[in-house]
């Protein structure tokens, strides 16, 4: 049977959702789902992945601590040679996308970024669908040659598989050459520590300039906690210094596709909508009945966003 290799990204034992979704899709395409888990001590992550995989390869090394591509690229390239997968899947996080791009160049492998669907053509060759031009069109792409194809997969796009019988966990040579490491990486304050990362959250609650004041984001955070959501922001909010740029949703910020997106006091400018139009249910609260965002929403409420937020948090016991 042909194989797929999923390069797992994990932080402190927490596995990126997109990795499990990628393993699920590999299996449903009839491919053997193999995972590569790395870290200083990757066993917890490997155990979390095993119920979704047929085989988990585990590579342990100090230098895997910060996801440094200088050591990950040679490792993945080595594993690809050994396992010869037809498809390599990497989560479409910032780190995952950089890793995949460097791998594509290193392996000379065809690569499609941020795919939202994957299938096999009649000859068994992978095909992928990816949004382009800010989601204004969906491209179906094919891959040349017969070597491994590389994709990064967007979270919440492929569907979450059900866990099954855990696959075998096998340790693999980390293939680390400390001389290959050219940069020194240190983690800085984790702005969103403890909260679901924006890019993979199943629910996002966003605030715009209509919240009128940075302090109103505390209410939004309460709502987020109550719903298990991540907090997003419009660019106007970021430019005003109310929120760090890592919170920005939109064309020049993060692209998100949660199953529920709720916007408070966001106008719905095209640049913002481009970053979230792939979401499931969209709910918009804006005091202006002509706000453009209502054209991109499933449910709309014309009201004062601050007032609604306050009542909502109280109603939900936040």
């Amino acid at each position, binding site marked *: 049977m042909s194989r797929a290799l999923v390069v797992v990204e994990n932080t402190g034992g927490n596995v990126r959702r997109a990795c499990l979704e990628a393993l699920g899709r590999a299996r449903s395409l009839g491919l053997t789902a193999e995972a590569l888990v790395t870290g200083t001590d990757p066993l917890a992550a490997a155990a979390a992945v095993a119920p979704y995989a047929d085989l988990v390869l585990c590579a342990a090394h100090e230098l895997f601590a910060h996801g440094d591509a200088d050591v990950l690229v040679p490792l993945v390239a080595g594993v690809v040679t050994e396992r010869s997968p037809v498809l390599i899947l990497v989560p479409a996080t910032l*780190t995952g996308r950089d890793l995949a791009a460097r791998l594509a160049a290193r392996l000379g492998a065809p690569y499609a970024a941020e795919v939202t669907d994957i299938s096999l053509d009649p000859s068994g060759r992978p095909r992928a669908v990816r949004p382009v031009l800010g989601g204004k069109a969906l491209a179906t792409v094919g891959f040349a040659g017969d070597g491994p194809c590389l994709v990064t997969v967007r979270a919440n796009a492929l569907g979450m598989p059900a866990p099954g019988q855990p696959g075998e966990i096998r340790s693999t040579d980390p293939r680390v050459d400390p001389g290959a490491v050219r*940069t020194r990486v240190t*983690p800085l304050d984790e702005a969103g520590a403890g909260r679901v990362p924006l890019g993979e959250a199943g629910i996002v609650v966003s605030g715009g300039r209509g919240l009128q004041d940075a302090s109103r984001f505390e209410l939004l955070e309460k709502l987020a906690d109550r719903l298990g959501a991540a907090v997003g922001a419009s660019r106007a909010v970021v430019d005003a210094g109310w929120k760090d740029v890592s919170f920005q949703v939109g064309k020049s910020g993060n692209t998100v596709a949660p199953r529920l997106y709720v916007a408070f006091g966001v106008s719905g400018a*095209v640049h913002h909508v481009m970053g979230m139009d792939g979401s499931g249910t969209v*709910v918009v609260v804006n005091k202006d009945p002509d706000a453009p965002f209502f054209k991109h929403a499933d*449910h*709309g409420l014309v009201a004062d966003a601050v007032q609604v937020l306050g*009542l909502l948090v109280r*109603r939900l016991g936040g």
Partner: protein
Amino acid sequence: MKICVLVKQVPDHEALVKVRSDGTLDIEDRWVTGFFDEIALEQALRLREALGGTVTAVAAGGGKQTDALRRALAMGVDTVVQLDDPALILADGLGVARALAACVRTLAPDMVLAGRVALDDEMGLVGPAVAEHLGWPYVGAVVALETDGAGFSAVRQIEGGKQAVKGRLPVLLTATKGLAEPRVPKVMAVMKASRARIETRDLASLGLDAAAVAPLVRVLSYRPPPTRPAVKMITGDLDAQVETLAAILLSASGGGS
């Protein structure tokens, strides 16, 4: 210090995009220089202002790519190079990266800056792929950068946080929002740039042939994104509205109570 900036002209964010019935795209003829590429240009110009040296902008492709280079000139770069070759018309990001890497090698800069992602194909491939071809260290999605001409210290964005990255030059970095606010060129500078002669190079001059940039990824067809049904407005007095809203959120979030 010698810096190269990779720039690309892309359809304006507000350009109308239509998918034709044969699965091809019809994009309105409105163009801008890459959003993140302008940030990269700004950062390069600031480093030149602080440390001296030169900034060279490089674009691969014909036609509209000239405009990206004219924009770079208007912003203040010293020189520009356009890689123009019929083989590049069909090239994908990997091919473009191979051509750009070959060109950068001839320019021998201390630093290359690119955009995090070009907002047309949205691949985020070319920057890291050029670094890989050059065999250089790479830092993606940079929001702060310092250098003394020998080493560098950068802050990069990662999912849900930031990392500090230190190393030695040469290095390739990609710029993201927050690194620098691009200057708006003066009218005189725009006029002067519009008349500037743009140096072009073909693949052969870089020791490459068409096979080196042959595309590996091909778009089979485009389709429009799914459309959303018309919005349902929540009505009633404020309490009733909040009640309905809460019910919608709880049911769509999959949570109970």
